[in-house]
């Protein structure tokens, strides 16, 4: 709103805004950052009619999705935002077709912060629901750097401020630190949670991904986070979740997914290779290809530093619903089949 003067000078870049939002607040999830970026976009654009706005949203969303290597998470946010606009406009009431379009615009623009706060609050709600899953004397196996899982475990550990009320142990699966030169610390994702838990007196064991099968026998329950929850109740999550799910099923351990309901995506993947993103995880090469690549790299020296190679740490896999015992969301503990209903409710 304050930057109204600069709109003419510099066109609004939604991709940069999105990335900036994600960087500035480590607690922000991708869908929320996408919603925020769209809200900012609206503040910068003087569109005053409904169809103009929707058109703008659609174009920017498409642009944003194209420019981000893995748009599954953010598409949940953009879809939700778009559906919300359309549904509100169709509904009778002061924000409806008869009402003032500026009113809904004003509501969205003035409440951007509120959305973020609610999204963070929903994490606490989930933690409150999920506390029941961490029982006295149990051992929880988890992975990755999910903020929801972290807040759930910390809430279970830190009830009433004193020493942990629930005596539980955590086996934390850490993937090796990213070797990239991203400037970030070389410590694996999730170390922060590990430290926070240890501080609260929760015994934490860290294991590499290769030790999951070995360690699962000592675990009572598996709790993981998710990047997106797809229509059939499966999840898209960081690479390695699928194998933990398979192993948990094989060993008969309950496998719970913790995710906010704004991560529900309208996507129906039929398998690992059906996700609408390109990941070069399996990359067949012969000696010839390797040599080619080496020469190419030499030619280009330091070519494009800002194009992130998609094979860094954000590769994902898809965990099908039959491996999931339950989803702990801010609308309660759902079975995987309940996800489609929630999605249907907003789309139809």
């Amino acid at each position, binding site marked *: 709103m304050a930057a109204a003067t600069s709109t003419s000078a510099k066109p609004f870049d939604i991709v940069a805004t999105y990335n900036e939002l994600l960087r500035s607040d480590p607690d922000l999830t991708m869908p929320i950052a996408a*919603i925020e970026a769209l809200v900012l976009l609206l503040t910068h654009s003087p569109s005053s009619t409904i169809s103009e706005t929707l058109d703008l949203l659609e174009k920017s969303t498409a642009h944003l999705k194209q420019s981000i290597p893995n748009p599954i998470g953010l598409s949940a946010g953009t879809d*939700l*935002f778009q*559906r*919300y606009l359309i*549904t509100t406009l169709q*509904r*009778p*009431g*002061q*924000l409806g077709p008869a009402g*003032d379009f*500026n*009113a809904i615009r*004003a*509501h*969205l623009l*003035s*409440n951007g912060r*509120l*959305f973020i706060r*609610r*999204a963070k609050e*929903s994490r*606490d*709600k989930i933690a*409150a*629901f999920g506390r*029941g*899953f961490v*029982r006295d004397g149990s051992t929880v196996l988890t992975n990755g750097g999910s903020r929801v899982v972290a807040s759930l475990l910390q809430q279970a550990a830190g009830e009433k401020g004193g020493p942990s009320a629930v005596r539980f142990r955590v086996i934390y699966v850490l993937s090796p630190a990213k070797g990239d030169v991203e400037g970030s610390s070389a410590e694996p994702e999730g170390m922060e949670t590990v430290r926070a838990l240890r501080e609260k007196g929760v015994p934490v064991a860290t294991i590499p991904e290769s030790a999951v099968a070995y360690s699962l026998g000592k675990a009572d329950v598996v709790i993981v986070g998710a990047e997106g929850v797809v229509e059939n109740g499966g999840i898209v999550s960081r690479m390695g979740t699928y194998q933990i799910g398979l192993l948990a099923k094989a060993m008969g351990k309950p496998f719970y997914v913790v995710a906010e*309901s*704004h991560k*529900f995506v309208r996507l129906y993947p039929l398998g690992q290779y059906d996700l609408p993103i390109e990941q070069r995880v399996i990359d067949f090469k012969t000696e010839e290809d390797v040599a080619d690549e080496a020469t190419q790299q030499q030619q280009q020296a330091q070519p494009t530093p800002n194009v992130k190679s998609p094979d860094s740490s954000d590769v994902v896999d898809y965990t099908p619903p039959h491996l999931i*015992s*339950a989803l702990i969301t*801010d*609308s*309660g*503990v*759902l*079975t*995987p*089949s*309940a996800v489609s*209903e*929630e*999605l249907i*409710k*907003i789309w139809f």
Partner: protein
Amino acid sequence: MPATSGPLTPGLASFLKTLKTNHIDTSIDNLISLLKRRQIRHSRSCATATAYLLRGVISASRTNDANKLIERVQHVGRRLMAAQPREMVVGNIVRRVLGLIRDEAEDDREGDFNLSEAGSESQPQTPRGLDDPTDALSARHDGSDRGASRQPLPALTAAPISMFSLLSHPETEGSLPGTPVSASPSGRLLGHAPSKDIRAEVLDGISEIIDELTQVDDQIAAYALDHIHSNEIILTHTSSTTVQKFLLKAAAKRKFTVIHAEAFPNNHEATHATVSGANPHDDELLSTESFQKPLIALGITVILIPDSAVFALMSRVNKVILGTHSVLANGGLVASAGTRVIARAAKVHQTPVVVVSGVYKLSPVYPFDFDSLIEYGDASKVISYEDGDLVDQIDVQNPLYDYVPAELIDLYITNLGGHAPSYLYRIVSDHYRKEDISV
């Protein structure tokens, strides 16, 4: 305690008899002690006693204020549930009554401002137990729930949808420039004098629940012919009346074979009696059905087997029909001990497992901890205390229930029809309000 009880043994019959004459607080204490002493057991008896008691509670409270009624029912409900936490039907009935009151209260309010706001951003203003942090959440989702649980109200389908709660209109911090103030009139409407008699409506609703409890077996049995075919071999377990009625209904038209596992040591006597038709009249559960004909009277071959023979015979069985103690929100169930073995054996042989259960047994409780659901009973049924030497030296345990996970069940038949286990969450959300899940 009550003068009228006289020769009656304490139980459901005596409780219902004294309910009319006693003061309501006495009856509450009476039921609590009956539950604690396990003098009322079995899902249906507990449900019936709870429903009658709550009807008494409502009719004894001389108020028409929904909030006070909810408070009162919650208070009584908590005490009852604490008395016997493993009888989950008690909690189910309490939740349904609470839902009834809330529905009536909302109906009432709706008449007032349906026109202006279409109920869109309104919140049910009934106070929730403020002891739970999840309440704030349920408040946000009430709207969509309402739409789901009350089909006859089309006006509510426009209520806010749960995934939108993130973006929706803020009620308290709503400071919209240029919008009319109609955003939150709801809070004030609470004080309005109710235009109709909520108490009477709720009492009607409870009577409907009681009717449901008496009719549920017949309603379930109506589906029998869809599931039992001629010359099939059916395996069942324990003396569940729901299963017996189901089989009897089919037996009237078709000939089939029933293999009955005896459920030693907790239920074998009742099972033997069911098979032979010599029902002991002292068993209060069966007292209403004690004149029921056994299956053999209808020309059905019934084979009584020990529990250990289940696996051996499973390869010949076409269908397993089981009764249950309670059904949980994730599709799993708690049933008498031995059920899991049967379900597992059926899984190995790919035999379909059908569970017959009234909707009143369906509990919104999520089984976080399976072990805590299982009750342990009288060890002397396994080894009697006459074997003192043995009892001294070994640890005898007699679990009464089994937890059966959802993946071992193929179909639930309730009074509403047949459902896959993964669909049960939907029935749960239709029958219980989110804010009542933790009473």
